[in-house]
């Protein structure tokens, strides 16, 4: 095992990521924990160093009034079990988190070596069309990158990724790997080869990776909830924006991919946009815009 955090030199380390494209059962914590645990076992058997699960993997997506019933504190036994399992493999998993003041968050944790290393609470809660998250959930307030033994990472939960500023902030905070947990409903059928939602996401993951010279691990779920399908298609995107691997559409899958550590280094030499990105100009202009909006 590599040391848990290694800032320098970690970028060139190769590692194996497994994207667990599962089909959670709506509101069934115990069964979903079993599902997650068996995917972790398979990932370990496949020698994965990191296993990523979709958004709300422990609960299912269209929870509505079930939110308080399936919410977990960070000291819940279910989370303790995931911490235990993280002695064998680093784990990223989505669930409903309840805080001490009874706010409920759509959260993701990065767990490794028996400890929660980072927690991200979904900031952008979609509340339009078929989405109604803000009715049931509280909004996260930060995007922070964090160190892992695979380099610095940032987590995004589904809609977060559609806000350009979110992956941008994480990349400016030093993240070179963006992990996106998703429960994306399939919709927008046409004459095209893919669903509208599939095509849009594939464009987004690839473009985000390319703009920010960062890897993207996108883990989506599958299955149906009340007639809504989740289309899967989880993917590993190289820092160049090219697709390294892609999971099956609509079916459960465990996408195990060797990540070439050197690719990030080479891409950052080849197109040093992040090196040249000016935080001071961005900040100056954003402050000006913010000031203008106040009047």
């Amino acid at each position: 095992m590599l040391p848990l955090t290694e800032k320098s030199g970690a970028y060139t380390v190769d590692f194996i990521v497994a994207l667990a494209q599962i089909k959670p059962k709506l509101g069934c914590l115990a069964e979903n924990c079993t599902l997650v645990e068996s995917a972790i076992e398979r990932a370990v058997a496949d020698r994965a160093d990191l296993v990523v699960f979709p958004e709300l993997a422990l609960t299912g997506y269209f929870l509505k009034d079930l939110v308080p019933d399936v919410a977990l504190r960070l000291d819940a036994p279910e989370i303790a079990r995931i911490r235990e399992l993280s002695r064998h493999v680093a784990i990223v998993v989505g669930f409903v988190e309840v805080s001490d003041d009874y706010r409920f968050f759509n959260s993701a944790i990065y767990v490794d070596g028996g400890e929660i290393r980072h927690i991200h609470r979904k900031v952008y809660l979609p509340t339009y069309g078929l989405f109604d998250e803000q009715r049931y959930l509280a909004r996260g307030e930060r995007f922070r990158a964090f160190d892992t033994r695979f380099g610095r990472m940032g987590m995004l939960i589904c809609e977060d990724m559609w806000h350009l500023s979110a992956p941008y902030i994480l990349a400016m905070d030093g993240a070179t790997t963006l992990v996106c947990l998703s429960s994306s409903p399939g919709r927008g059928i046409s004459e095209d080869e893919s669903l509208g939602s599939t095509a849009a996401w594939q464009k987004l993951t690839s473009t985000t990776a390319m703009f920010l010279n960062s890897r993207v691990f996108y883990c989506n779920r599958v299955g149906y909830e009340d007639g809504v399908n989740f289309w899967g298609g989880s993917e590993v995107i190289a820092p160049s924006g090219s697709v390294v691997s892609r999971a099956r559409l609509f079916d459960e899958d465990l996408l195990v991919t060797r990540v070439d550590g050197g690719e990030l280094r080479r891409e950052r030499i080849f197109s040093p946009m992040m090196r040249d990105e000016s935080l001071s100009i961005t900040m100056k202009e954003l402050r000006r815009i913010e000031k203008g909006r106040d009047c």
Partner: protein
Amino acid sequence: MGDVNVKLLRRILVGFIREEVTKVGIRKAVLGLSGGIDSALVAYLAAEALGPENVHACIMPYRTSNPESEAHARLAAEHLGIHCQVIEITPMIDAYFSRFPDADSMRRGNKMARERMTILYDHSAALPALVLGTSNKTELLLGYGTLYGDMASALNPIGDIYKTQVWQLSEEMGVPRDIIEKQPSADLWAGQTDEQELGFTYREVDKLLYSMVDQRMSREELVKNGFAPDFIATVSARIQNSHFKRRLPIIAKVSNRTIDRDFRYSRDWGK
């Protein structure tokens, strides 16, 4: 509205039936086969999803039904190898209307649709099987169906696709040509056709509905795109006036948690 990717559509709808039926702990589905394209398509999707041995079709003619309808229903069932039985509804319908001999054709048609519904739900309990709905998006939007009759079901695989897309998907699934090519009809009386009764063709109205509902074009945009103002007005009124058919009954609110208003759960709760 262009052509639809029928292979992708097929995959999603077949997956829908398979998952939504089996996740409630049931293996079978039951549906009414009218001889028309909508129910035939649903039978083809269900046979692919669950296996023909798990699909039960009821053909439920009334004495005035066109004999060709039953023949087409049998053709589809035999082609698929699904279970099929004919249950005449004439005795039940005639027994009831002997008390109301002056009832008009709308009352009679509604009663027939609801009689068929009770038969399907009885089979749902007997088999056990989930009742598959066969109303497409066009007729659901236009309210061209009987509330608690043919609109009643446990699952509807085709409720989000327009009639035009039903035709396209039926070609892909191999529904017999005779069924695809015949004039759509509710078959309540001899010579009745949907398009005659509605006053426009499915192809025309599907284009309008797609622009209006899916693309959310404003009235001005619709007119600019060549839809006649009268046609827009007629169709808009139909959608609005039939909206009650697409909703659960409304409940008088007195408590803090009223079903479906502030007591909200997905139907797949725990599934």
